[in-house]
């Protein structure tokens, strides 16, 4: 068999995290914490630099979701310029965003997570990866590679580079869409539909096998947050931010991105470098919320495209309303891929898409800019202030993984409750902790701007602070 090189999630997460599990006097799990132990400091890098550099600079936070960072940043810069970008530029930005969501979801679903569902969490870790998957289910592994490439190629054809293109700029985009590029993308769309449909079919059929995971994987009520379109539809690029409670009631139908600080607070804990955002009106830590694919499908009134809407209706029937289990993040990713292909196709078929006017030029006309988009992993906020010459004086970034920090910690605790017995850690427990963290598809590169790597390290601690056991996964 030919060997294939792919991304392994476990190792990616391993890079930067540590988990401690605290026992109480009766030897039961009292608390479990997911620590992140490093940072890179992008918020400081940018200070004193011209605002127009930001999309390019901020893209370098992360090689996987470059596009999301570039877009949130460019939107904040559009505000600093106080311009409305040309409508074609808006559509072109949306297309690369959708393509980026597809490539990232494909990576998460096929490369990172399907080995767990299809080979089983108890299977040998040495083969519980895409290599093992390619052996047992070659067609599924191939689907994953193809779907990821579909998204990556759209980005490359439109923006020049797959990672860190300079094409997304304040005021719009660098160059218009060429007709032959549009046609080339349209030709690849049928295959992408087929892959997603086929994947949804087998995934839905196999859901009943995961009853246990669904019950215990980050399954708890929280608030949910994400962008929605003006009509309450699924929105990944621009809109207002909706917050919904655990019963599905609307807390805020949609606040304007510029008022995010009224709704989102950020707490700091001394034991981790990742901050803890919370919903301000409820307070810390009760204002726990989740973002990302599951949250987005929980807050909307409909997706807004025909095929995705059908799937969404079925999805919402699972738990008759809100879906709490983080296991459903995986399911939600497939539905979002379907939506993304449909939307992308609509934009490409819009006659305005080939218009040559794709960039507005202006200097710094405002001292502040806030850009919010939905990255594959959830809501992404870039907030800058600039002086009269357009130099950045202050910035704040709230990335998707950080929004989910409280929920990830609670998820780890839930698994620990269920699977830690006695004063020893087992391999099975470790696998489940990893799997639950992976449902969130955390990007620690984004959330910490990772400086280098440490192994995933789980410590079991007695009430008096004595370390009973530890496991390193290296």
């Amino acid at each position: 068999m030919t060997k294939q090189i792919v991304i392994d999630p476990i190792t990616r997460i391993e890079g930067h995290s540590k988990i401690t599990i605290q026992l109480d006097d009766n030897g039961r799990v009292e608390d479990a914490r997911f620590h992140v132990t490093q940072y890179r400091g992008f918020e400081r890098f940018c200070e004193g630099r011209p605002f127009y550099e930001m999309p390019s600079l901020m893209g370098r936070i992360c090689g996987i979701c470059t596009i999301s960072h570039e877009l949130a940043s460019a939107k904040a810069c559009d505000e600093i310029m106080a311009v409305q970008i040309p409508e074609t530029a808006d559509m072109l930005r949306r297309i690369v965003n959708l393509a980026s969501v597809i490539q990232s979801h494909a990576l998460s679903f096929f490369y990172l997570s399907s080995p767990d569902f299809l080979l089983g969490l108890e299977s040998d870790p040495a083969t519980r990866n895409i290599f093992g998957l390619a052996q047992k289910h070659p067609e599924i592994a191939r689907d994953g590679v193809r779907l990821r490439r579909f998204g990556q190629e759209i980005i490359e054809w439109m923006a020049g580079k797959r990672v860190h293109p300079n094409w997304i700029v304040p005021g719009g985009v660098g160059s218009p869409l060429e007709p032959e590029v549009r046609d080339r993308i349209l030709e690849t769309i049928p295959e992408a539909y087929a892959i997603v449909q086929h994947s949804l079919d087998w995934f839905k059929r196999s859901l009943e096998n995961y009853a246990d995971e669904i019950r215990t994987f980050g399954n708890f009520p929280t608030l949910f947050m994400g962008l929605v379109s003006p009509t309450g539809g699924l929105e990944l690029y621009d809109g207002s931010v909706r917050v919904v409670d655990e019963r599905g009631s609307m807390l805020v139908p949609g606040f304007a991105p510029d008022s995010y600080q009224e709704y989102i607070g950020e707490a700091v804990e001394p034991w981790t470098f990742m901050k803890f955002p919370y919903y301000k009106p409820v307070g810390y830590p009760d204002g726990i919320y989740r973002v990302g694919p599951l949250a987005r499908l929980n807050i909307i009134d409909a997706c807004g495209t025909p095929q995705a809407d059908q799937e969404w209706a079925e999805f919402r029937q699972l738990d008759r309303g809100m879906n709490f289990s983080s296991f459903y993040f995986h399911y939600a990713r497939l539905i979002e891929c379907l939506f993304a292909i449909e939307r992308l196709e609509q934009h490409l078929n819009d006659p305005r898409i080939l218009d040559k006017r794709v960039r507005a030029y202006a200097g710094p006309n405002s001292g502040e800019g806030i850009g919010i988009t939905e990255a594959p992993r959830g809501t992404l906020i870039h907030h800058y202030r600039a002086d009269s010459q357009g130099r950045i004086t202050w910035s704040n970034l709230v990335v998707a993984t950080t929004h989910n920090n409280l929920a990830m910690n609670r998820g780890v605790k839930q698994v620990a409750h269920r699977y830690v017995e006695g004063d020893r850690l087992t391999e099975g427990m470790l696998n489940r902790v990893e799997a639950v963290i992976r449902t969130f598809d955390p990007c620690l590169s984004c959330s910490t701007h990772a400086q280098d790597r440490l192994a995933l390290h789980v410590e079991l601690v007695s009430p008096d602070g004595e370390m009973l056991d530890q496991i390193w996964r290296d």
Partner: protein
Amino acid sequence: MPAKPKIAFFDFSSCEGCQLTVIDALQTHLGLLDQVEIVQFREAMTEKQDTYQIAFVEGSCTREADEDRLRAIRKQAAVVVALGACAHLGGVNSMKNRWAIGNVQTYVYGEKNKETYPSYPARPISAVINVDAAIPGCPIDRFEFLHIVQMMLQGRVPKLPDYPLCVECKLSENACLNTLGKPCLGPITRAGCNAICTTYGDGCEGCRGFAPEPNFEYMREILRGHGLSETEIDARFTMFNHYQLQQMGEDAPLSPEGLQSLNGELPTSTFAAPKEAEGHG
């Protein structure tokens, strides 16, 4: 059959974009995997071996522990290759060298947490160990990567283009952005990416590093012509090449103010108060 050379990938302070580019390159050029054996690649596989002949290193050195790890890699590998701007030049990471380092941590995480995580100015890996070859760019170009690996497998020493980007840009028949009012660092930047950014409409930012014997003064003059201030020109020059300019010291082609900020002499924030004061702590 002769044994395949074993190659390994390592990452330091980086965004992992170069490693992802390697993965992309391998997916379309699976044949390469018949010629080499990959024994360590955190992005791609869990298992690992500690014997290898060629080491590809992504990311900058930003703390003391990195130095030991780099030396261990150097000791094992016959050939060490810097992968991408972070490893090759210091890349975007070295921008933080403008500030006294503790300040960066305090800014992001508050006074009480800053000690937990030791860090110092960012440097390319060549500041710590001998490097046999570099693949420039942020990220690397996947075709150049494949080309360089092929050269090395044939025992040849890969050579980077020693002419500026404008040569490739002209071959691509682009209209020159500097004549269209868009600032472009093409004249002083090393070619090899096929002028990808200028082809897609935005000026080169210099991610591949300076071309040999760059004419900085001429470049500054062009940029002034676009109405860029001296500080803005400094910013253009330092985005990926801050460390290179630091090495040039007094001779760095920057404005007096730019020279001052090269070496971490900005002790506290030049602008706003740290975040905690803003109520974010």
